[in-house]
Structures are given as structure tokens and as C-alpha cells.
């Protein structure tokens, strides 16, 4: 085979600085690149974080799930703020005892409960929750209206509103801390297997397993599509063209996802899957698991009793 002949312009074209230079808008793509990279890193970190050896890690996963869910339900039923604070302290003690690092706890606390707080903040205002004013934020002119609603004399934060918000925030913090203790002491495979053994539909369990398994692959594919485009981009084009590119990228990712799903299904069929997924039976419960469930039941019953008596 003879070597291909390159066209004349190939070596004759040199960078011409007299041509209009593109406006440097490359920075616009940085957030996308960083977001994809951060997502990938976060996922890799979560997937590769080993389960630390602790007393909770040794509890059978089904018993652990039942216990933690019972504690979460208990936290949502308590009404008194001081009791919720005690419950939160209990959850924190569990988290510390299973050697959850402060940085991991803070990362989660800053994310989920603060988001919840943003939702509940309006409830602190007298516009939503009436009660004695704690702090006045704004004075309205007499007779002010907002559409069909008459506004009060002032916009205040109420004591009742603060209690409602505090209760909600404490519940969120407690629940998130408990769930974090669960996932940090149980590897994903054992967790999913336990959920299946607790009666979660098998196909649902399989879908969850696969989502967990293939998320990083699809994220990598999305990053590759983005980087491939970036490697041939000098500057961002007009918005319409960028939008077209994003749509095409999504289409390509969907096609790859679809193809992968098809291949996975074929691989399952090939190894005997006939629609009725069989899973490996796990070990039975041990005395330590019974002790854990008993302790959980005692803690919930104790807190419920204190709430009723006070």
C-alpha cells in the first residue's frame, strides 16, 4: 500500500496572527469540566472508602438496617426539642464510636441539613408561624397588602417558628448522622443484599446494584465526550451551537447507556438469568444482632416514655 499524499495546505498553513483572534471564552467550559471531574472524584472516593472495623460493622446488615430505620422513625416521632437534642447526641455518639471522621460528618451535615434549613427558614417568620416575636426584621407601612393578603405591622422571627425550625433541623441532623453510620459501616454489596433479603423486590435490588456498578462508567463516558470536544475547541461558539452540542452529547451518552444495558442483559441471559433473579442466601442472625435490636428498642421506648411523662 502506498503512503497517503497529504494535501498541499497541510504543511503550508502556518498560524496567521493577522486573522481575527477568537474571544477567550474558554473559561465558560471550566465549570462543566470541574463539575464532571468533582463528581467522578466524589464517586470514586465514596466507592473506594473502606468500611472501618467497628462494633456496628460487625452487626449483620439486615439487623443494622432494621435498627437504623427504627431509630430514624423514632427521631421523626419525637416532638420535644430537648429530647431531639438528646437523640442527636446519641446519634453522634454512635457516629463517633464507629470512627466516622469529623470531616466526613461535617461534609454531609453542611450539605443535607443546611438544605433542609433553607426549606424550613420561612417557617420561622410570623407570616407562616404565629407566636411571640423574638426578632423584628422589617416594619411594614400601616395597611400594607401583598395581593389579596394584608401584611402585619412587622416581619418578625417568632419563638414558635424557631422551635419548629429547630425541631426540623435536629431531626434532619439525627437521621442523616444515623444513615451515614449505616452506610459507613456496611459495604454497598452487603447493604443491597440485605435489602433484598428484607423483602425489597429482587429486580429493584438488581437495578440498584447496577446503578451503583455503572454510574462511574457512565460518568467517565460523559467526561470523555466533554474532553474530546474540548480538545478540538479553541473558543466557545455561539450559544445555539453549544446547545446543539450539549443535546448531541446527551444523545450519544444515551445511546452508549442503552447499548451497555443491552449488553448487560445479554450477559445475564447467557449465564442463565430467566427473569427470576436468584440471590445468595446470607448468614443468619447472631446473639450480638439480637442485642443490638434490643438496645435500639429500649432506646426508642425510653425516649418515648420520657416524652410522654414530661
Amino acid at each position, binding site marked *: *500500500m*502506498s503512503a497517503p499524499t497529504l494535501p498541499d495546505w497541510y504543511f503550508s498553513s502556518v498560524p496567521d496572527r493577522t486573522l481575527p483572534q477568537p474571544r477567550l471564552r474558554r473559561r465558560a467550559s471550566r465549570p462543566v469540566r470541574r463539575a464532571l471531574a468533582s463528581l467522578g472524584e466524589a464517586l470514586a472516593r465514596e466507592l473506594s472508602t473502606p468500611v472501618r472495623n467497628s462494633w456496628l460493622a460487625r452487626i449483620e446488615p439486615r439487623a443494622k438496617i432494621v435498627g437504623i430505620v427504627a431509630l430514624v422513625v423514632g427521631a421523626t416521632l419525637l416532638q420535644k426539642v430537648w429530647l431531639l437534642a438528646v437523640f442527636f447526641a446519641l446519634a453522634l455518639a454512635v457516629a463517633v464510636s464507629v470512627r466516622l471522621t469529623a470531616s466526613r460528618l461535617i461534609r454531609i451535615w453542611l450539605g443535607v441539613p443546611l438544605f433542609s434549613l433553607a426549606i424550613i427558614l420561612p417557617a420561622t417568620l410570623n407570616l407562616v408561624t404565629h407566636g411571640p416575636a423574638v426578632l423584628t426584621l422589617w416594619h411594614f407601612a400601616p395597611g400594607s397588602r401583598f395581593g389579596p393578603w394584608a401584611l402585619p405591622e412587622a416581619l418578625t422571627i417568632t419563638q414558635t417558628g424557631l422551635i419548629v425550625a429547630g425541631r426540623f433541623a435536629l431531626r434532619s441532623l439525627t437521621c442523616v448522622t444515623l444513615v451515614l453510620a449505616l452506610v459507613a459501616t456496611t459495604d454497598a*454489596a452487603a447493604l443491597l443484599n440485605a435489602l433484598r433479603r428484607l423483602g425489597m423486590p429482587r429486580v429493584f435490588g438488581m437495578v440498584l446494584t447496577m446503578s451503583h456498578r455503572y454510574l462511574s462508567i457512565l460518568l467517565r463516558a460523559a467526561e470523555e465526550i466533554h474532553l474530546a470536544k474540548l480538545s478540538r475547541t479553541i473558543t466557545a461558539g455561539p450559544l445555539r451551537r453549544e446547545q446543539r452540542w450539549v443535546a448531541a452529547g446527551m444523545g450519544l451518552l444515551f445511546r452508549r447507556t442503552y447499548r451497555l444495558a443491552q449488553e448487560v442483559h*445479554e*450477559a*445475564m441471559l447467557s*449465564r*442463565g438469568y*430467566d427473569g427470576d433473579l436468584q440471590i*445468595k442466601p446470607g448468614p443468619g442472625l447472631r446473639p450480638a444482632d439480637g442485642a443490638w435490636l434490643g438496645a435500639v428498642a429500649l432506646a426508642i421506648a425510653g425516649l418515648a416514655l420520657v416524652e410522654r411523662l414530661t
Partner: protein
Amino acid sequence: MRRPELPEPVFEARDVCYSYPGGPPILREVNFSVQAGECVAVLGANASGKSTLLHLLDGLYFPTGGKVLAFGRELTEDSVETPPFSREFRQQVGYLFQNSDAQLFCATVEEELAFGPLQLRRPAEEVEARVADTLRLCGLEHLRERSPQTLSGGEKKKVALASIITCGPRVILADEPTAGLDPRTQQWLLELLFELHRAGLTLVTATHDLVAAADLADRVIVLSEDHRVAADAPTDTVLRDLDLLLAVNLIHVHSHAHGSITHVHPHAHPVQHDYHEHAHRD
């Protein structure tokens, strides 16, 4: 220990045609049979229909024309979904996919190896024993608790093959088994496949790697770029037929310079230097 012989032939393709819905033909009037204990390589260039042919042999696709028979029974959607044949067929035929990521979908290596026997309704103790034996056979004990997604390409391929072995198949279909592997893993895989073949298993390997075909196969079926069987003969005969290999795009005429002399020859192992031609540059 050699297994009892299977009814012969293991596979039979009779005038098999296949095309994807609305697409061009992928296979045209393909005829061949595979006897028990044979090791057959399906050779062909990219997009010649090798993978599709293996999918047809594994009852994952069904021909749009002609018939595919396995163990004397026609593979149809009904037959591969109806017990007892469906379970027997899946137990007897294992498929090593080209894309290991698609084949490894469980959360850990151990679960991956247990998946097949569990679906085939083997008792739990037997599944445990099969997993332990296969991990030992493939030298994968240290990866037992690992997630397949954290493994290297070579390790994934080993686990994929191990996940088939636990089902105890008597026939293994392997799609480009050596593609993308480093030389040591390639050699390991070929040696293990060869050992399985020596133990009595029937192997059908789709590849365009002539070295792998030469190492492994007794017989070669060549698919041409127009999706027909261009040859079906012993491996030596096919690999010495340079005109055939050139025609089906499995070797190419290679041109490189030594000083003022341009050196031209068909290029592909293991027939690289059987044929030479020298031409002077103008």
C-alpha cells in the same frame, strides 16, 4: 477428567442469514457445524459478523433466515426460554463477551462468580464450592471481595472467564478474548482456554488475531467482508493461504523503506515473512 461426549454436532448453522432491523445483512447464507471437543476460530475483519455469529450460537439473537441448531435442537426464542432445554443450554454454553464491563455487573467478584450457578438453581453449598475452586483455578482469591469496576482490564477478563467457568459449561464461546490485553494476560488466557479445551471443552473463538487463532484453534472459519463464509478448513491450511487472508482483510501489504529500497510484503504474524517482494523507488 474428560467429560462425557455431547451429542454431535454441538452447533450447526444452516443457511444462516442475519440483519438488524432496517439494517444491511450482517451474515449471508452461513453454513458450518462444530463437533464436540473441537476448537474453532471464527476469523474475520472488523464488522464481518463474528460477534453476531457468536450471539446467534448463544441464543441471544435469532437468525432472520436459515437455522441455528445446538445439540440437535433449533435455537428459537421459544426453545431458549422454555425449560428444561433453556436451563440445560445455558448451563452447557458459556459466552465470554468482548466487553468485560458489560459482563461484570455484580457488586463483588465473589457475587459475579456465584451469579451463574445461582441462576441455574444450584444448591448454596455447591455454589460456594464452585466459586472457591474457580477462584483458585484462576488465581483470583485475592480479588474475592473486590468490586469488578475497580479491577484492571486483564483482571476483569480473568473474572469474566471465571464467572463462566463456575456454570460448568461444556462449550465456551469467546468473543475477541485477547483484545486489549497485555501480553502476559493474553498468554494466561490462551493457556487457560487451551487447558479447558484439552479437558474436553468445545471452544468457538471469534477473533482477528491470527496468533491467537494459530495458538488455539484446530479449525478456522473465515468470514469475508461481504459476510459470507470464505473458508472453513484446518488452521494451518487457512493461515498459509495468503491470497485468502489478503482478500478478507486479515493481513495487509506492508510497505516500508530500507534506504533506497522499498520493502513490500503481506504483514501479519505468524505469516509475516513467508512472502517478500522488493521494489526500487523511482
